[in-house]
């Protein structure tokens, strides 16, 4: 890894250099009734709109690489014949400016599923390989538990990672493209003092977490507590609305619908991101529903994130970004659910 130091004010120059492409970053979206600012990812046209000191965004950035709705293919019907057209939907490169470690870790996890050997997803792959990622350091919000999930720092999956250290940035350079862009900025080499400051910054961040999840032996505990009463209690609260999955940076489950246009000249297959909490998620042909109760559906969401995925990939599918808990109107949060399941082992 190459480390460079530059003045904080230079980050605007970096933004301008990258703005030959479409930049997506954190922007203000409104004010919460409690007075706090609400952030979300959006296309940023002006550096002034980019809020690099954001806590957490409402949604993840997944709409740009794993859209909520996407055409898988379209068909044209003509003279009793038909043609199929597939478009991966990667029309332009995206620069993601200001992704936190949780979201970059989320992309790395999605890569394992969607760009692995077994069932690579070209729709995702086309967009994923056409992006430039500038990560940015952060301070934990009250609902962040990324350190519990090992996602509070990130080793790869980005081009450039910026850690704010007083009036300067330490830039981790991870790609040749990033290196050449940094050449156009006024930078200096990192010194021993910078290295010490980096560690100090990191340990200060770690000291600020107020929320955590005990993941030790979690896959086994989940196995043991499959019949636990706590699932029923959480299930009673669950609205089965799918919000948790929609704001989650790693939820990738989907449904497919087919539509014919009114002229019968075209048809399309539309993919829509779905949620395992929705009532018909496990409904099969013939109408049988394997998970009619909301408690079972909620439980399986946790089993996929914290057990099944761990068995398959030796890591959790949760990055601890805390978005699901923030967005859940019923206040169902990962730390509380896991703690209650662990508590019931006694």
């Amino acid at each position: 890894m190459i480390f460079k130091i530059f003045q904080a004010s230079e980050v605007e120059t970096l933004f301008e250099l990258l703005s030959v492409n479409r930049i997506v970053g954190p922007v203000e979206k409104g004010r919460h009734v409690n007075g706090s600012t609400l952030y979300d990812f959006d296309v940023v046209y002006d550096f002034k709109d980019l809020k690099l000191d954001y806590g957490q965004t409402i949604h993840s950035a997944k709409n740009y690489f794993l859209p909520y709705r996407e055409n898988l293919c379209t068909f044209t019907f003509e003279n009793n014949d038909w043609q199929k057209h597939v478009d991966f939907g990667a029309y332009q490169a995206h620069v993601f400016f200001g992704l936190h470690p949780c979201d970059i870790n989320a992309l790395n996890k999605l890569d394992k599923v969607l760009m692995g050997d077994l069932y690579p997803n070209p729709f995702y792959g086309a967009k994923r390989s056409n992006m430039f990622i500038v990560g940015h350091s952060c301070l934990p919000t009250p609902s962040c538990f990324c350190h519990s999930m090992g996602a509070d720092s990130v080793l790869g999956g980005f081009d450039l990672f910026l850690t704010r250290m007083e009036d300067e940035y330490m830039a981790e350079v991870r790609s040749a493209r990033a290196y050449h862009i940094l050449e156009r900025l006024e930078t200096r080499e990192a010194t021993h003092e910078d290295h010490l400051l980096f560690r100090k910054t990191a340990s200060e961040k770690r000291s600020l977490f107020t929320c955590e999840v005990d993941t030790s032996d979690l896959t086994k505990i989940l196995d043991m507590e499959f019949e636990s009463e706590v699932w029923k209690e959480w299930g009673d609260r669950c609205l089965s609305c799918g919000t948790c999955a929609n704001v989650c940076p790693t939820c990738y489950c989907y449904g497919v619908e087919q539509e014919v246009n009114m002229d019968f000249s075209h048809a399309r297959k539309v993919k829509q991101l779905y949620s395992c909490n929705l009532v018909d998620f496990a409904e099969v042909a013939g109408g049988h529903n394997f998970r009619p109760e909301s408690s079972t559906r909620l439980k399986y969401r946790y089993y996929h994130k914290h057990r099944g995925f761990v068995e398959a990939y030796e890591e959790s599918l949760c990055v601890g970004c805390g978005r699901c808990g923030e967005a859940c109107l019923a206040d169902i949060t990962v730390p509380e659910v896991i703690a209650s399941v662990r508590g019931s082992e006694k």
Partner: protein
Amino acid sequence: MKTERTFLGVPVVKPRVGFFDLSSCEGCQLQILNNEATLLSFLSLVEIVNFREGMKEKSDEYDIAFVEGSVTRADEEERLKRIRENAGTLVALGSCACFGGVNQLKNRFHDLEWVKKEVYGDFPIETREARPISAFVPVDLEIYGCPIKKEEVEKIVTKLVLGHEISHPNFPVCMECKANENVCLYDLGEPCLGPVTRAGCDSWCTSNRMGCWGCRGPAPAANLEQLEEIIKQKNIPQERLLDRLECFGGFGEAARKMRHRLEKNS
């Protein structure tokens, strides 16, 4: 003259359809006519033979009847039964036909004679409890919304003509609202029925920063107890939630129970 159309080489029959109105604002029918950009395509899909909002001709020979409005008079009940006899497929179009709609708001008053007097004074008029059309005749298909979402109607009618299976979204409006990346209205201090209302509207209201009023009725797994709890925690008066649950009639029994509870506690 019916134009012979085919889909994947298979001939497709162009059904004769009629649009009918009971007690309603006829806004759902206007929605269908409003869609100028796709109106010609819609007309290539079906042959409209009876549509007071759009034509003078009236035929009683139709395969599909779209009925807007609720039943509030005896003659409407009779008319509805005749439509049912004529039609192979009867479609309830919009919230009034499906649930009673805004009209059924009057049902919650104990004294309907008083309601009549308040609205019409001494003018002699027959009006009774507003009921959905399913209270009188078997309904084959319901299309929700106040008003209906024309894109959804077009999709449904296309499926109807092609004989494809028709299914409504079983998830609540939150799914579509989140997919549209809106800020949650509860975060802005507004009540919203999005978490319990059936989707399909593409979060029409909430995308325009207006909380959902539940016009499409409850989603199959609607958790109203929890929504009540949420409203309490957020210090939003229960009455504001109830106003919305009652507005279109979709939440029927649950809303009635809640009103009963609130009246008892007040």
